[in-house]
């Protein structure tokens, strides 16, 4: 099993997301995360998909996605030539006395505390998936009440083969 990150530029047509996710569902491909958002040109949406499978499946995923009429461009975001970021919101149960420990962890990871309640705080953290995983594992001593992760968005480095949108 390998993972690949695909970046798609798609026409912002009705049902485009369901066409893409439906393709994964009906062909039995596994999707680790999918993020979508409008580009600088509102006619287009950029989608970042993390897919898992063996090499043959990953090649098929790329070809089948490319075949969809709404897909304007698809490229693999290679780790060495791209940047990935994910946003995670983590609600942790922290009694007032223990707050300082969490705050220092948050500082080390350059995360932010964006909400403080009497018994809990919400941490906002951006990074690649490994960093977020590492941070979550360090929170082990605390009770994580809720966790929301966005899945990664990614772009290639530099200006080579860039579609300006």
């Amino acid at each position, binding site marked *: 099993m390998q993972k690949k990150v695909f970046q798609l530029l798609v026409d912002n047509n009705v049902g485009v997301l369901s066409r893409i996710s439906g393709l994964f569902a*009906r062909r039995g491909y596994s999707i680790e995360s999918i993020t979508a958002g409008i580009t600088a040109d509102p006619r287009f949406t950029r989608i970042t998909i993390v897919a898992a499978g063996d090499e043959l499946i990953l090649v098929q995923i790329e070809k089948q996605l490319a075949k969809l009429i709404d897909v*304007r461009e698809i490229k693999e975001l290679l780790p060495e030539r791209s940047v990935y970021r994910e946003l995670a919101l983590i609600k942790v149960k922290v009694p007032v006395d223990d707050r300082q420990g969490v705050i220092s962890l948050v500082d080390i990871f350059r995360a932010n505390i964006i909400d403080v309640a009497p018994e809990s705080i919400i941490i906002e953290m951006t990074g690649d998936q490994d960093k977020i995983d590492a941070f979550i594992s360090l929170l082990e001593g605390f009770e994580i009440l809720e966790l929301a992760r966005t899945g990664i968005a990614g772009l290639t480095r530099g200006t080579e083969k860039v579609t300006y949108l």
Partner: protein
Amino acid sequence: MIGADAIIKCLEAENIEVVFGYPGMAIAPFFNSIRDSSIRPILVRSEQNAAHAASGHARINGKAAVCVVTSGPGATNVITGIATAFADSIPLVCITGQVNSELIGSDVFQEADITGAVESFVKYSYLVKDANDIPRIFKEAFFIANTGRRGPVVIDIPVDVQLATVKNYSYPAEITMRTYKPTVKGHAVQIKKVTGELARAKRPIICVGGGIHLSGAASELRDFAERYQVPVVSTMMGIGALPTRHPLYFGMVGNNGKNYANRALDESDLLIMVGARLADRAVNRPEHITKGKILIHIDVDTAEIGKNAGPTIPLVGDAKQIFHQLRELECELTIKHDDWVTTLENYRETMKRTRTPNPAYVDPAVFIRLLADKMTDDSIYVADVGQNQIWSCTYYIVRGGRFLTSGGMGTMGYALPAAMGAKVAAPDRQVVAVCGDGGFQMSMMELATICQHDIPVKIIVFKNNSLGLVREYQHHAYDDRYSCVDLDGSPDLCQIAAAYGLTFLRLHDMNEAEMMIDSFLANDKSVLMECMIDPLDLVKER
């Protein structure tokens, strides 16, 4: 002009002369507007058959045919027909009426999310929200259906959009789609590699699929095979790409194919697949096909190449175009294939399966050969699904005509409506549908359509009072423990024919076969002919 008029204008601009359909409230404006047009609406008796008829029409006419149905049950009924066309890459444009756009999503009467429902077996679908988009959407829909790997496109049009005013109607002459640009021309480097391998090959073979018909590349294929003396085998969808009795043709491959065709495929050292998917029925274990041989896979759909077997040389493009490109390159064969061709001829002669037919019944093998010999050179034979399909594939002889069947989906009941569509597309050609008594009863209601619209299709029903192929499977796999394969209760077809005013013939055994086939084919009206088949007859004797 309203949306419905615009739809008609678009169809006229696409030179559509006939639509197969079934009306309803949500498509009423369309069926009102079509009265002012020269487009001929053909009312079918069940929506599924509108799509099958359009499929038969498209396969003979070589471009997308149109079916039009209403919302809700009309749309859902057409789904099997769309899926059947999708599996065989047949170009269709399917127009479905939809409830008023403001009511979409509120589960009103006869509402169904058809674009959602057909998502996994259409090439593309549209839900029209603005009547002014109709010309662009239709232009795109026909372009998508008719190019690249062909396939069905659904256009769902709410009734209020059909009634809305269209300002400044004009049908686009040209089409540019940002996201859809099918590859037609083969890559020059890859083409060179093909001729390179061909020049070195000792035992080359070409395996053709339905892509040859879709691309209209039959004569190019023949030219290529003859020029380099390369033997040809075919998948079920490829039958007729080369005439059955062509010296270089060695039959259909696959688990229902000829054993000498499979052996030829196995023993080749260079396999050129053209317009075929390497699907499970044709190539049992695709992962083994590349062992000890070079595989060249030519297909218009990139995603088909490498899906089931990794080719040595992938070549994306339209079959016809690629044969033309191959023609331009002079290929000096360093090795003659004469021995190889002789070996295959020897296999063809000696590896014939023998049958042990029951003389009390019609022998489908002999019957189909006899029928084929008596049919005209350019006739169209439409096989249904079941034992009849396997017998048809095995024994029918294509000379210059076509052999149509539902290969990918294996949809029972396809033959009669598809034959109807084919006959409408080619009124001067002989069209014969061959079904079993199971499949026939799935589309028997279309006898009314052929009567109403005077479409003289000839119909043969192989009657064994059983779902033969399933029965055969239960014979082999469940030791004769039969379940739900008995067709007792079926109607007397003689009376059915009489009820529709059709001529009826019944053939009990082979004694009168020749005479009866003559009278069947000589009649210029629709004829229903029943052939009594031994319920114990098998397509594969083990």
